[in-house]
């Protein structure tokens, strides 16, 4: 598969910020791939999308989309890409169709072509019958779907979807997922940011886990989960947790163990099976257990293992 998006060392620091929002990020996305950017709020995902959709220039690094340079060949890149921003970027007092007429016009679409495209994308998001309704009268989920329709109206080769399911009802979420899968079938390359690990796991061919402006892991969801496994997380008190964590690390079937802020993480391929031993070791160390949580194999446990924090903190 040819490479569709190639980012090398992208960096962006906002004026007055203590740390860069995006810190030397590199990755590449193949044509037709759904590539996930998974990370908590504030990880730098939206800034990365802004750079790739030519809204924010990078301070350092470079990127190519469809072989065109992001900075030097901005218009070509913009024509090839579609953006679905995280916020509902629609005119509430205009109808869905009027919104799409405007956004299609921005890409030079007009006349019968434009109307046909509007019909196509509205059908895809399941809102063909609401075309003449004002956007402000639609439900949150429907607005989200129109928001997506506006991003794919001009049939871009690469689509940037920035948290497209925030605050939507399950029905709309399914429509969105089905729509995205249909777009993949049609050969569109998709960059998908989310802080919902279920979405990344379900939709993405590969996932880059982003935290504090950096990519801390990048692979298929399966490989990431296999590498990092499940996690037993305990909140303890009554002494230093570090020696207990060290003792745990030596146990059979525990891949890794660490302690921070009165919290002990023990990672294992089969966290439920090691729980009894873990509790024994910690009690023997004179600590009291305040809470226990077992996270089975998923991207959430991968993130926790990598950062010691949860995605939705």
């Amino acid at each position, binding site marked *: 598969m040819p490479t569709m998006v190639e980012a090398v060392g992208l960096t962006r620091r906002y004026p007055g910020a203590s740390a860069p929002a995006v810190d030397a990020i590199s990755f590449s996305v193949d044509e037709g791939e759904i590539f996930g950017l998974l990370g908590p709020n504030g990880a730098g995902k939206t800034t990365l999308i802004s750079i790739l959709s030519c*809204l924010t220039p990078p301070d350092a690094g470079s990127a190519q989309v469809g072989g065109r340079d992001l900075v030097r060949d901005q218009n070509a890149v*913009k024509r090839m890409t579609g953006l679905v921003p*995280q916020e509902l970027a629609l005119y509430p007092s205009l109808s869905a169709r009027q919104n799409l007429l*405007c956004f299609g016009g*921005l890409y*030079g679409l007009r006349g019968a072509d434009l109307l046909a495209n509007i019909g196509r994308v509205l059908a895809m998001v399941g809102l063909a019958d609401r075309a003449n309704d004002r956007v402000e009268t639609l439900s949150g989920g429907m607005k989200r779907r129109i928001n997506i329709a506006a991003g794919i109206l001009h049939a871009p080769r690469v689509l940037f979807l920035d948290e497209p399911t925030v605050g939507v009802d399950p029905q709309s979420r399914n429509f969105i997922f089905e729509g995205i899968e249909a777009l993949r079938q049609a050969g569109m390359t998709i960059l998908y940011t989310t802080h919902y690990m279920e979405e990344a796991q379900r939709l993405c061919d590969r996932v880059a886990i982003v935290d504090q402006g950096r990519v801390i892991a990048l692979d298929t969801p399966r490989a990431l989960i296999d590498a990092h496994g499940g996690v037993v997380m305990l909140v303890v008190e009554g002494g230093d947790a570090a020696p207990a964590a060290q003792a745990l690390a030596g146990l059979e079937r525990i891949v890794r163990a660490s302690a921070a802020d009165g919290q002990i993480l023990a990672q294992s391929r089969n966290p439920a099976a090691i729980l009894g031993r873990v509790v024994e070791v910690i009690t023997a160390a004179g600590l009291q257990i305040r809470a226990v949580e077992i996270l089975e194999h998923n991207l959430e446990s991968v993130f926790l293992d990598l950062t010691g924090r949860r995605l939705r903190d």
Partner: protein
Amino acid sequence: MLTVMLAIARKDLALLIRDPGALIVLFLMPLIFILVMSLALSGLYSPGGSAVAIAFVDEDGGPFSANLVKSLATSGGFDVLTNGPNGKLDRPGAEGLVVSGKAQAALIIPPGSSDAVRARLTRSGTGTVEIVIVSDPALSPQVLGPIRGAVQGLAEQAAFLVAAPGGIDLLVSHLQTGGVSVPPEFAAALKQQAASGMAGAGNLVAIKEALPAGISSDRRPNAVEQNVPAYTLFGLFFIAMRLASNIIDEKQLGTFRRLLAAPVRRATLFAGKLLAFVLVNLVQVAVLFALGVLVLPRFGLPQMTLGAHPENLILVSLAVSLAATSFGLFLAAVARTEAQANGIGLILILVSAMLGGVMVPRFVMPGFMQRIGWISPHTWGLQAYQDVLMRDAGVAAILPDLGILLLFAAAFFAVAVWRFRWN
């Protein structure tokens, strides 16, 4: 590029039409201002009323002027002033009365007028009699017209009283030389009949209009000619706040990110926006001027005409609109919130409108205030409108005003592009 501009413009028009607040500010507000201010101030702009004071300068000293002053005084329509503080009124004294507003007009009867009147009949009409009406340019034509008509009639009558007896004498003498005897009673009756019956039938007297010495020939506007263009201009500039709000709204909605993510040059984006708002401005002008021409006369206000070159109103409106919409971009660039844009915009527009003669005409302002007014785009817009409406100005005459308005537009646009926060 055109497709893109039209897409943006059409969308912005649709947004505006769905915003009742905007429509009230842009259309209803100036409309109400025009109506109320024109009715309230109609007396201010057209002095006059029942008693017309007329200063009478008798440089003739003959029977013509004596007859005229008598008939003016007895006609009942005039309050005739013949004496100034230093005795008999002279021309400078009379002009002083006109300028100070104590007289609406001065009537000057030049020396030798009586002789000229006599000569007019006795020498086969070669003599010319010209009297002069001096009026303040602020005097509305609605007042000056009747004065002029009445003076013309009375002057014809006075002239005939002077000329007719000589003419009849001549006629009688001609008849007698032909051997016919005319009874003296018949001759006397003929004289009297001619004087009263034929008065006003011919044009014995020409009236020349003049302005007091040192007063420029600019005709001053009446209440409608002042208020319709002034408050139209006022309303046009309010578009700036709508435009600024529109842009700030787009930034908050996030739609601005979409516009910027599209392969659209920033100048095209701005141009599309300006197109929509300039169109709205032109509709405002059409509606408000139609009000001035068609509706206000029904309220008993003076009739407004569009001048000899009404098509030039479009040029003026375009120049004003470019200045106003560019000012809107400027507001969007310097203000961070909609409230700021509205606050800053309102203050600047009100001050500019005041300095520019929208609320109070500039000709009543002291000299230094008139000079400060040069920094207001309203000054140049109003001047251009009134030149077209009242002075039949052609393109050449309003070119300087248009140029200055476009300079304002360019300056606002440049600052807007320079200071605009694209992210």
